[in-house]
């Protein structure tokens, strides 16, 4: 995708200023908005958001683009032989699978843990113990058996590394089940793959999840990484808890009841949608826990989750190709156990952007709009912001403090992390402040 230099100049004096002078000049008022050409591989919420963004224009199949919300298969096939101008952005890192494939993340975390143990000691290394013990199959089969024998009676889960949505997963407690499974040629759909067994991991199954109302749930949290070297990551305030459906069934109840005053029969039961009502916004979840356990305990839990995000990204920092054109919005799946310890289940490079309900749609709209604000194709930001909409800058080549001021302001007093997961997301107000014309902004 070659972008002509002529077009580049037309896109904006603004870009030109930014790149050559180093400091963004005060934006001239009311320049005709340069158009940003985008392509989008998905047809859900992200497409709505891109289409509605002022000054952004969708390009046809073979047209040139400045921004591409691509899918991972396109990336795999085309990234290596696609030339992109400096300003162009795409939404995936070339080898994101180092973080998102179950067998790779395990390897990277193990290696990272060893490194920390060497450099900072055993205690510090325990901060990496948020991933349930996992063994690659069959290469680590013997290690697995050793671990298995040390802990008789616990449940293990066998997961395919690359497939999603629960396909091919099963639980087991007896070694016999694994042996039988290996022998069986049951997995007919990947017969073509000789090394099919290598596509699995055996993981310790967390048997004591935290329950609410007797139901299991996991948390979905969004982390936006703008670069790996240096590591710059943002955490979104919104997210949700997904409750397991297994005990919750509601067949449509055909409800009629007769008014005592004999007015016509009315249907009062709202149409039940099985998708609806299985998610709690994370703010509600945080409030629930605070009411139950107190604010301090909850602060600790959320701080431990921050630790998961940062350590997991640090563990792949050196292996991921940190191309300046790339950014990535990850969906982290976290499970909380009964001791209020958070566990990392999985990192998704393509978290679902399809909305399951009105509330979910609004969340995803906010999330994606703010993502695009941070990507900042329009060049409105200084790069020193600590908060943009619902995103808080969590890591900027080092921890980011919550204290007033931008990233350069020195911190005095005790350090409080700049993360606000589960806090009120008053993004509209903040964005209004943020995008006021530069010459009228009081803050540097």
């Amino acid at each position, binding site marked *: 995708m070659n972008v002509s230099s002529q077009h580049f100049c037309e896109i904006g004096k603004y870009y030109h200023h930014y790149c050559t002078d180093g400091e963004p000049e005060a934006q001239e008022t009311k320049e005709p908005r340069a158009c940003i050409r985008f392509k989008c591989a998905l047809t859900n919420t992200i497409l709505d958001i891109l289409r509605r963004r002022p000054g952004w224009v969708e390009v046809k199949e073979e047209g040139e683009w400045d921004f591409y919300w691509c899918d991972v298969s396109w990336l795999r096939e085309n990234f290596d032989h696609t030339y992109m101008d400096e300003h162009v952005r795409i939404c995936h890192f070339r080898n994101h699978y180092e973080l998102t494939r179950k067998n790779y993340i395990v390897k990277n975390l193990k290696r990272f843990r060893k490194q920390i143990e060497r450099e900072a000691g055993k205690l510090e290394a325990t901060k990496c113990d948020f991933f349930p013990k996992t063994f690659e199959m069959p290469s680590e089969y013997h290690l697995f058996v050793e671990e298995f024998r040390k802990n008789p009676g616990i449940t293990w889960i066998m997961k395919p590394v690359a497939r999603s949505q629960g396909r091919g997963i099963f639980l087991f407690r007896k070694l016999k089940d694994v042996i039988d499974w290996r022998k069986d040629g049951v997995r007919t759909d990947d017969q073509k793959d000789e090394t099919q067994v290598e596509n699995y991991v055996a993981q310790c199954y967390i048997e004591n999840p935290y329950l609410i*109302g007797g139901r299991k749930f996991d948390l979905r949290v969004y982390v936006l990484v703008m670069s790996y070297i240096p590591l710059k990551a943002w955490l979104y305030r919104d997210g949700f808890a997904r409750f397991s459906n297994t*005990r919750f*069934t509601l*067949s449509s109840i055909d409800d009629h009841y*007769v008014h005592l*005053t004999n007015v016509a029969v009315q249907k009062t*039961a709202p149409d039940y949608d099985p998708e609806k*009502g299985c998610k709690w916004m994370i703010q*509600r979840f945080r409030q629930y826990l605070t009411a139950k356990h107190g604010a301090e305990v909850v602060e600790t839990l959320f701080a431990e989750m921050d630790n998961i995000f940062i350590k997991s990204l640090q563990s792949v920092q050196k292996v991921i190709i940190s191309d300046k054109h790339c950014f990535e919005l990850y969906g982290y799946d976290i499970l909380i156990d009964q001791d209020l310890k958070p566990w990392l289940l999985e990192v998704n490079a393509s978290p679902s952007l399809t909305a399951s309900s009105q509330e979910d749609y609004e969340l995803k709209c906010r999330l994606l709009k703010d993502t695009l604000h941070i990507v900042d194709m329009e060049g409105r930001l200084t790069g020193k912001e600590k908060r943009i909409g619902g995103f808080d800058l969590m890591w900027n080549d080092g921890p980011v403090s919550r204290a007033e001021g931008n990233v350069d302001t020195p911190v005095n007093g005790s350090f409080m992390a700049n993360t606000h997961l589960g806090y009120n997301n008053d993004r509209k107000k903040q964005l209004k402040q943020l995008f006021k014309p530069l010459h009228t902004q009081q803050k540097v």
Partner: protein
Amino acid sequence: MMLEQDTGLSLAIAQIVQRLKGSSLHSQLERQARGSLHKPEIKLDSLKEDIKEFLKTSGWEKRLQNAVYSELNVFPSPCHPAAPPEHMKEPLVYMRKAQGSWEKRILKSLNSMCTELSIPLARKRPIGEQKELLNKWNEMGTDEPDLTLFRPVYAPKDFLEVLMNLRNPNYENGDQPSFRNHLGLIQVPLKVKDIPELKDYFSELGLNTGQLGIDDSTQVPPELFENEHVRVGQTVLTEQDSAAAQQYVRQGCPTALRAELWALILNISNQPEDILYYEQLKSNVIQHDLLVDSLIYKDVKLTASNDDYYFVFEDYLYQVLLCFSRDTSVLEHFSYNSATPPKSYIRGKLGMEEYAVFYPPNGVIPFHGFSMYVAPLCFLYHEPSKLYQIFREMYVRFFFRLHSISSHPSGIVSLCLLFETLLQTHLPQLFYHLREIGAQPLRISFKWMVRAFSGYLATDQLLLLWDRILGYNSLEILAVLAAAVFAFRAVNLMEVTSLAAAEAVLADLSTLKVMPLLQIFLFATVT
């Protein structure tokens, strides 16, 4: 007059002493006092003073204080010694009569459902069924009994029709209905507060007083109000003072302290005997099946299970409500509730008083939406017996007033009248417009008030609202909030031309912030 005040006071004291006598607190105090005799500081010649001092320092006096305070809050002050007991239930005869006929209709409906479906009001469960239920106690939500034939006994709409037809036979104002008269649905002359009186009554909600729900927002530095308020809350809890807690929560409860503060105000301590009592109720549920159980199931499935946030607590709701219907201690509240528990007779003994039982055992027939009284409490309490006690106390202090006909200032009739009066007085144009298009405001707000806004507001907002219900020991805030909501959406409402459109404007309250709305309506609107 001094003399009357004194008699009133001594009568009140006598009543409270009567009620506390024989309570578990009484026996605990006796036991503590007796135990203290061994202590060196208790001297024989100053026995009385020393024991009193001991009870004070050990915190038992505080507990007695809390119990007395609780009694004062719950039971109305005694009226004239010659007044009949019905007077304490409801002083106005026409209200009592209306409540009586409403009850007859409910009972008729229940009985006819019973006959149609040939289901007994109560039956003993066979052993096999008992075992099964016991196993499933923590997941009754997975059960899917066939509820298609059951109908809720009544819905708020039906109740509103009855209230609309209430008339005081002694009241004749002779005027033709005009703009100056009351144009609303409620046509009984009860005294309700106007805005100056409300401002005075709810003075702690004023603009110059810190509030949770306003002054704890992220833009406000916590040093200005929130930190200090939390500190005070912790002190109140350490002191275990009910009265102080009730005053404190008027400015809202910090999330982490709310459960304990509410328990303190409601004087719930979850003693072993309370847990035992709950277990006993549970075994009653296991042994006997009641018709109302099906009504409860149906209600939970229709309302709480469909709610985005409360669906998670489905199982707790059954555990609370099924026990609640069997709890005969709830019958005590009928001495100050205008309602009377329905009576049923053992088969074949119709009319014979010796064979009469209250049905359901607690005398409360659930209606459509009843489970929503319990659902928000599941956010705060997780231990079933404590959750149960909190709900029961909330019911016998507040919720019962929302579905019985009485003249009490917190009764639903007064709340409706308060709402309509506020709206007509302060938003006359809106009121008139809505009335003209056939959208009487009360038709829309009634369901909010009957449910104390549960299921309509976001949970955190609802809890802030219920903080104030506890703080002021009154439900009037529900009517004020309802009016404030209409005021907030007045611009949109002025543009609608039908009841359906008005309903649509007011269908979604989940984004509302209650405290700013209340503050603006009470303190920042030009009257």
